[in-house]
């Protein structure tokens, strides 16, 4: 019988260096393996790219609409119709009273004669209005609230205006703004829903790709596990495969969105010009591209982690 063998005796530092080395090796080998199968890799990237490009495009379109409609939203303004028998002097007094409120920026008085003349000019009903003995329009105050006053404050202001003596009606049309906000909110949720579904699809496709990759390398995994590799070691190359697939898909998706926006930008910009808007149709931007790549990478990693962990758990030897 011979003197016993000493065994490995690995220094902790060596393990860390080797761990980093193996990560680098797994990362580069996975990438090389992907490039060696250009058709399969291209198709995977394309599927992930489409899954990311569709919600990304919708989101960018929505952001553009929000920016444009944000410009179109005029500041809130109340039309305060005074009682019919209010004199011009009384109207001036009411104006001063309303103007003294802390939530009001300015108030403009439109006397009833001026209102009638403007109405006649706008409608072309000059003759008809001449035949009416009394001016049916009241004096009107146009009340502009402070820009900082938000929806609840506006409701408070409306209530406050209604109780002013001599005020008949307070007109404040926020319905169209509420409708627009509702449409945009619904749009955002639609984009989120579509995005979520597409991302789930991308995760499933990537997970299936990783499962197939593991199946294709089953013999290799068995061998490395037999000679002492744990699941983390066996899983590592597949995690990088998932990561690269996600990154590549994200990049491809960003390119697709870019091409789509180049195609769309000219007619949309012309349309915006027709509406006297200074806005220009904007695409993803560099941060958007990076976000798509990182999102793709994260999805790839997540899919690979799940697929590799479940697959390796079922694979002999454990």
């Amino acid at each position: 019988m011979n003197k016993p063998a000493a065994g490995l005796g690995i220094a902790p530092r060596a393990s860390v260096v080797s761990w980093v080395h193996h990560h680098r090796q797994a990362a580069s080998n996975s990438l090389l393996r992907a490039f060696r199968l250009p058709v399969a890799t291209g198709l995977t990237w394309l599927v992930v790219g489409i899954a990311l490009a569709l919600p990304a495009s919708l989101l960018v379109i929505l952001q553009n609409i929000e920016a444009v409609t944000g410009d179109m939203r005029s500041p809130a303004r109340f039309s305060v119709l005074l009682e019919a028998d209010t004199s011009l002097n009384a109207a001036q007094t009411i104006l001063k009273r309303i103007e003294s409120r802390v939530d009001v920026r300015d108030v403009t008085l439109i006397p009833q004669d001026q209102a009638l003349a403007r109405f006649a000019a706008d409608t072309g009903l000059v003759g008809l209005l001449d035949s009416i003995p009394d001016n049916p329009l009241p004096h009107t105050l146009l009340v502009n609230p402070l820009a900082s006053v938000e929806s609840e404050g506006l409701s408070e202001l409306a209530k406050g205006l209604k109780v002013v003596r001599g005020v008949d009606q307070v007109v404040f049309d926020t319905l169209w703004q509420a409708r627009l906000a509702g449409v945009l909110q619904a749009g955002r949720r639609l984009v989120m829903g579509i995005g979520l579904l597409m991302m789930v699809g991308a995760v499933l496709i990537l997970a299936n790709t990783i499962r197939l990759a593991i199946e294709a390398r089953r013999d290799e995994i068995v061998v490395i596990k037999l000679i002492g590799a744990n699941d983390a070691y066996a899983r590592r190359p597949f995690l990088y495969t998932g990561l690269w697939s996600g990154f590549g898909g994200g990049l491809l998706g960003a390119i697709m969105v870019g091409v789509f926006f180049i195609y769309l930008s000219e007619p949309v910009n012309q349309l915006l010009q027709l509406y006297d808007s200074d806005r220009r149709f904007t695409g993803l931007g560099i941060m958007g591209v990076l976000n798509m790549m990182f999102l793709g990478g994260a999805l790839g990693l997540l899919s690979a982690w799940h697929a590799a962990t479940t697959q390796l758990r079922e694979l002999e030897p454990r």
Partner: protein
Amino acid sequence: MIEFNRVSKRYVDHDALRDVSLTIPTGEMVFLTGHSGAGKTTFLRLLMLLERASMGSLRVDGRDTARIKGRNIGRYRSEFGIVFQDHQLLYDRSVLENVALPLEIAGFRPRDIQRRTRAALDKVGLLGRERANPAVLSGGEQQRLGIARAVVARPRFLIADEPTGNLDPQLSAEIMGLFEAFNRVGVTVIVASHDLALISRLRHRIVTLKAGRLVAGAGL
């Protein structure tokens, strides 16, 4: 030291090992023989924790292997070098990369991996073929490559399952010579083989299994 104490392994339809008790001291070289289905492979699989015993206990260097679980199994297996009859080489990697694998798994530095890998290839006479693909090597060379991979991380135990099954007598003798050389430097070697003519020429304990029972070689 490896201690099988009344170990049985039962599958659904048959008993692969029955009440096997055997002690293999550290540094010994043992041949495990018997006909096909005698239980040689099951014996090795239990030792590698590819299977668990249905009854009895298996201790390696005092550790009860039944208590080794999860992530510790990999570390346990890395104490073993394993040589397969069909080599189990990775044909998308070079000779050097195949041999380097256990060292990478064990966490060696890249420069140590290079040094040790070359040394292992030198021992089995394959230095100079590092860049070659294993597929271009002959059967004997592939088996020597498998042995280099098994011993490169300096395992405490070397296990071989029919390592000469596909080789001619001269190559088989060469391979056994390599195992003896590693045993001389302190590695515990267990070789499963049904080539009685070959192993009986070598002066090592022969443990015989028959229908899952240990019938000879239990004593030291």
